[in-house]
Each structure stands twice: as structure tokens, then as C-alpha cells.
């Protein structure tokens, strides 16, 4: 009797195992972004990515979704190496800057028509543009982010500063008041700091520079993205503005070894996900410490924006199922409230601006920290999807850091940046 039950059971399990579809969802998110946010008693406040995947699995018993967490610093390499080795994930959460490179290399599958039409109709134009490569929609926008000034209210208060700087010159002056040094001249409290050793440091150095560039009336590239304009007067002016912080002793490159959570940095320029990270770090103190304001400008208010999108790997054996999941996760609306699950995760947990118009309308009023970032969308210029974008961005960062260290003048640094980028664009043709 036992054999009569055991053997069919084993057969059934085997059949189920082989008929089960396993999707691999690759993301750079980790920690609370995947596991969710809990209160002090261990009760789940906001579900993380894994809760949504579990919900989908419960609704679709034949589908299992695994999360593959990859640090952002190695993300692009991991996609490429995984694709080459035939071990790529099925679904990616991608930085739009990599889009041209990945589409050109045949790594991504084009979005089916039912997905593409919803992306056009339901999402912010900036976000939809981020998921569009060579006029083809390659995925579903996951987030659209601007950059803003994050400042420590307590340090401002202690220094007797009541007004947050609006112009870059004001930021330099305020920074001087907030920077403290010890008896040997080592900065112990930074009025302003640039991150150097973080995974996001390339973006966190280049995007503030871009914001200043746009504010000075300049552009990094021409309209056809075939030539760099970083040798223009506006580009040099923006670089001189950054160099001024170093010349005036407000900051130095060692500031990158500090962290805002240590409460010894007064101002940084970061994207909204950083506010979410600070909320986790500061807990109840967050509202008392963290303030968010527009980036101080040179000539007019401006900021830079970037986007992420969900895409499907061209080498996936389960493309249809992958798009079906993404449709449920990022395009379909929950019954109540009328929001997407991806938008809910992004706004409540990840700390990003939801790119779906309905999601944005719903969360705009609810999330205080996001409001400032959302309001900056009106002044934001989105990062262009350019060939060899990752290499170009690192090149720009290298030249900015050279100018920060006074190895090159701002003018020379930007001239070299333009020259190197034009060579890269030429090789990429």
C-alpha cells in the first residue's frame, strides 16, 4: 500500500518539477528592498520585492521566481558575462544608460506590442523615453529619478544657518561655515562631500556636474549624440563651480571616505533612493536630520534625471512567461488603490519616483521625501541613451576627479573629456 502511494507521489513531484517554470529576476536591490520594511515588533510595514514575487507564485502555481542580487558596481559586467555563458537571468532591472550597449549586443528582447502600447499610454514621457532604444520600446520603466541636495538640518541649526543655499555661490559660502578642521588641518566635518568609494560614485559625481551644466545653459552632447560638447564655455563654467568647493577648502577628495549617516557631512547631492537608505539608517531621527532641497544652480534651476527599466533577456527560454509576470507586476493595477505593484514597491520601499502616471499621482501626496524630487521633474533633463554610455560616464568622472585634485585645470579637464569621448563615439560607430 505504501509503495502504491509512494511511487505515484514521486512521479507526480517529478512531473511537477519538470513542468514548473523558473524565472530568474536579476536586480541590484538588496536588504530591505528585497525583504521589506518591518517595524520594531517585527511586523511587516511595507512589502519588499520578494513578497510580490511570492504573491505572483501563489496566483500562478506553475511558476517560480528566484531573485538574483548583484551589486550595482558589477551589474553590467554580470549581465554580459552571464549572456556569454548562457546563464543570463530572465528578467533584468536595468539602468537605461546601458540600454544602447545591450540592445546593440542583442542581449535584450523587444517588448511585445501589448506591453509597448501601455508604456506609451500610462507612463511619464521621460520614463518611456528611458526604455526606448533606437525608437523601439525594450521594456517597462521601473523608476525615474532626479538629483537633489540632501542636507543635515541639525548641522545647519548648530551653525546658525537658517536658509538653505539656492545658488552655487551660496552653497560655497554655507559650506565654508559648516566645514570644520582639526589642529592638523584635516577636515573632520564636511560642509559638502562627493562620494568616491561607493558603487554609485560615478553617477554621484557626474550627475551633479550635469545638473550644473544644464543650469549653466549647456549640454553634454549634440542632439544626434555623435559629438561631445564638454569643451563648451558652459561645461567649463560648471566644472569651475565644482572646483571652487575644493579651492575654497569646503571639501576634499577624502570626503568620499565619510558617510552622511555618520552625521559629519552637512550636504550631499543624491538621488531619492539615498533618502530611502537614510530613512532606514536614521529611523525616528530621519525627519529631524534630513532635509531635501533643489540643487543650487549657477544661472537657472536645473537637475539631471536618470531612469531604470525592466527588460527580458533575449536568451531566456521563458520570454512569454517573463513578460506575463512583468505585465502583472508593472502594468496591471491593483483593485484598491489604483496603483501598480511595481510603483508601490518603488515609492514605498526603494525610494524612487514611480514612472507610471497614476502611481505618481497617488504617491505624490503621501510621500513627503519624494515630493521635492518629484517637483524637480519640471527642471530635469534626462540622461541621454548614448552608445558606450558606461565608458563615457567613467571618462567624464576621471576628468572631473582630476580637476578636483588640481591635476588639471577645469578647462583642460573638460577639453580632455570632450576629446576622449569623441574618440569613444568614433570607435563605437
Amino acid at each position: 500500500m505504501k509503495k502504491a502511494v509512494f511511487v505515484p507521489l514521486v512521479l507526480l513531484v517529478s512531473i511537477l518539477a519538470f513542468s514548473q517554470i523558473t524565472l530568474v529576476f536579476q536586480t541590484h536591490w538588496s536588504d530591505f528592498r528585497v525583504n521589506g520594511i518591518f517595524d520594531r515588533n517585527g511586523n511587516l510595514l511595507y512589502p519588499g520585492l520578494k513578497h510580490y514575487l511570492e504573491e505572483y507564485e501563489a496566483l500562478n502555481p506553475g511558476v517560480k521566481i528566484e531573485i538574483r542580487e548583484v551589486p550595482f558596481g558589477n551589474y553590467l559586467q554580470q549581465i554580459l558575462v552571464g549572456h556569454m555563458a548562457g546563464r543570463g537571468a530572465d528578467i533584468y532591472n536595468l539602468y537605461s544608460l546601458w540600454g544602447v550597449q545591450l540592445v546593440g549586443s542583442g542581449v535584450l528582447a523587444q517588448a511585445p506590442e501589448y506591453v509597448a502600447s501601455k508604456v506609451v499610454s500610462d507612463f511619464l514621457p521621460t520614463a518611456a523615453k528611458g526604455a526606448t532604444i533606437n525608437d523601439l520600446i525594450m521594456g517597462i520603466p521601473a523608476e525615474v529619478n532626479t538629483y537633489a541636495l540632501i542636507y543635515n538640518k541639525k548641522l545647519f541649526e548648530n551653525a546658525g544657518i537658517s536658509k538653505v543655499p539656492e545658488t552655487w555661490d551660496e552653497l560655497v559660502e554655507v559650506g565654508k561655515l559648516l566645514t570644520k578642521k582639526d589642529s592638523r588641518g584635516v577636515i573632520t566635518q564636511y560642509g559638502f562631500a562627493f562620494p568616491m568609494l561607493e558603487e554609485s560614485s560615478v553617477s554621484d559625481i557626474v550627475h551633479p556636474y550635469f545638473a550644473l551644466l544644464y543650469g549653466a545653459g549647456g549640454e553634454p552632447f549634440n542632439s544626434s549624440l555623435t559629438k561631445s560638447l564638454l569643451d563648451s564655455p558652459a561645461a567649463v563654467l560648471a566644472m569651475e563651480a565644482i572646483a571652487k568647493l575644493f579651492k575654497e577648502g569646503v571639501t576634499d577628495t577624502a570626503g568620499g571616505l565619510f558617510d552622511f549617516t555618520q552625521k559629519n557631512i552637512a550636504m550631499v547631492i543624491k538621488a531619492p533612493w539615498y533618502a530611502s537608505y537614510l530613512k532606514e539608517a536614521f529611523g525616528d531621527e530621519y525627519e529631524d536630520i534630513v532635509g531635501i532641497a533643489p540643487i543650487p544652480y549657477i544661472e537657472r534651476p536645473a537637475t539631471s534625471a536618470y531612469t531604470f527599466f525592466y527588460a527580458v533577456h533575449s536568451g531566456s527560454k521563458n520570454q512569454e512567461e517573463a513578460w506575463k509576470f512583468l505585465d502583472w507586476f508593472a502594468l496591471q493595477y491593483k483593485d484598491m488603490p489604483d496603483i501598480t505593484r511595481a510603483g508601490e514597491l518603488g515609492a514605498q520601499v526603494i525610494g524612487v519616483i514611480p514612472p507610471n502616471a497614476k502611481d505618481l499621482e497617488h504617491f505624490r501626496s503621501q510621500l513627503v521625501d519624494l515630493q521635492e524630487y518629484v517637483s524637480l521633474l519640471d527642471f530635469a533633463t534626462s540622461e541621454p541613451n548614448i552608445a558606450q554610455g558606461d565608458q563615457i560616464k567613467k571618462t567624464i568622472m576621471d576628468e572631473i576627479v582630476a580637476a578636483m585634485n588640481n591635476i588639471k585645470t577645469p578647462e583642460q579637464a573638460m577639453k580632455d573629456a570632450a576629446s576622449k569621448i569623441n574618440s569613444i563615439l568614433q570607435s563605437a560607430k
Partner: protein
Amino acid sequence: MTRKGKENLTAYLFLSPILLFFAVFFCFAVGFSILVSFKNWNMLDSPVSVPFVGLRNYVGLFTDPLFRAGLVNTIVFALAVTFTSITLALFVAIALYKLKGSAIWRFIFFAPMITPAVAVGKIWTYLYNPSYGVVNHVLGWFNIPARAWLSDPTLTLPSIMIVAIWSGLGVPMLIFTAGLDSIPTSYYDAARIDGSSKVRTFFSITLPLLKPTTLFLLVTGMINAWQTFDLIYIMGGAAPAASTQLVSIFMYNTAFSYMQMGKALAASVVLFVISLFTTLLALRSFRKGGMESYYA
């Protein structure tokens, strides 16, 4: 088949697994690398189908200021780290030779070798921290100004070289100790009887007889130093790229971030040629020496 033929065949059969391994993972890999260095390969297309571009990758390397900076940094790094660590290891080995409690001292000097490079890099990043790091704190006792060891472009590479030397002392020290053991004590007795000073004994007996050991350490040390990646990758992020770029980092970024495998492999060929040249130079310089030279 003759008896000698049979013996040869048996020998090759026993050697065949390792020869196969060598053929696949060395000969094929090197040959493939050299071939693809003349192609414009992005790793995603088949390397067979991509066209030849001649010397374009090599020209692109030597016109790339980042590669040139990396080459200079690599040469400086390799020479400084290798020669300094061998010299220091020799003196440590002599100082600890036949000393009471030397086993503990040898362990202390060897311990960094068995510590993962990532851990070493991370710990030293904290030690070098300009504000709360131990290094600046100790310098403060002597009123020496604090420095930004890992973000000042003039200091970052030397700071990492110090860590590389410190962490690489252990193995050369042990090998030198073994080399010292191989020198017959009768030579030292004879030198002492002849009234030779310690310094004279060192330069006339110890150093010449350690030539084969020194050659081995020089060659292996240089080869390792040319390929250094981990410490620079972990500790060098805060300084401008040109000041800490090594050819290995350049290769990694070019291949896996920028998808220019052809150019990256061209860089690896250049590194291979330099490594081969320095090895041959070392072999030629040290070809005579050791115990054999006394009987030649």
C-alpha cells in the same frame, strides 16, 4: 619498439593529462588571446566571425593616456614592490635565522600571506583613513601632518605599494630561510677563522650563495607584481584613475565594462611581452651563482 622507445611512450602517457591541461589552458588560451587582440571583438558575437583590424587595438592602446599611465604605474609598482619585498625579506630571514622564538616571529611575518587580499585591502583602507585612521594618528604623535593616503594622487599608489610589500614578505622570507639552511656552516667557520667581518661575510658568502633563491623570488615576484589587481581595485577607488591605474585594472574595465575584448587582450599581450622580457633579463643576470659556481 625499442626499450627506450617504450620508456619514452610510458613517460608521455603519464605526462599526457598535465600536457593536455597545459595545451588547453595555456597554449590555446595564449594563442586565442594573441589572435583576438587583432580583432574588434565585444565578447557577444562569435570571435571567428568578427573582422581583423590589424594593429588598430595596439595603436589604440598606446594612444590611450589611461593605458600609458597604467603601464608606467605597473612598471613602477612591479619593480618597487618586488625589489623592496625581496630585500626586506632577506634581512628579516637573516635577523630571525636561528633566533630563539623565531617560529613565532616567522608566523607574524607570514600571517598577511594567508589573509585574503580583500580583507587586507579593507583593513588598510580604514588604517589609512585621514580622519580616524591609525596611520595619521601615529604620525600625529610626531607632529607630522595628516595625509589623505588613498585620495591624494601622489600618495595613493605608494600607500598601496606599502601594503603590497607588507603582505608579500612572508613567502620570500621563508624561502630565504630555506636558502640560508642550504649554505654549509663550514664556509662561515672558515670566514670567521680568516677574520672576516659580518658585513664582508654577508656580501662574499651569503649573498652569492643565495643567488638561485634570489633569482627564483625575483622572477616569481615580478610575475605576480605585474598582475596585481586586488589591492588596487579595493583601495584605489578614491584617487584619480590615472594615478592608480595598472594594466590589470585597465584590462578588466576595457573587457568587462566597455566590452572591448580585443583591446583588452592587446593589453594582456603587451603585459606578457614585458613580463617575458624582465624574466629573461633576470635569468641572464643571475645565471651564474649559488653553490654550483664554487665548483665550476
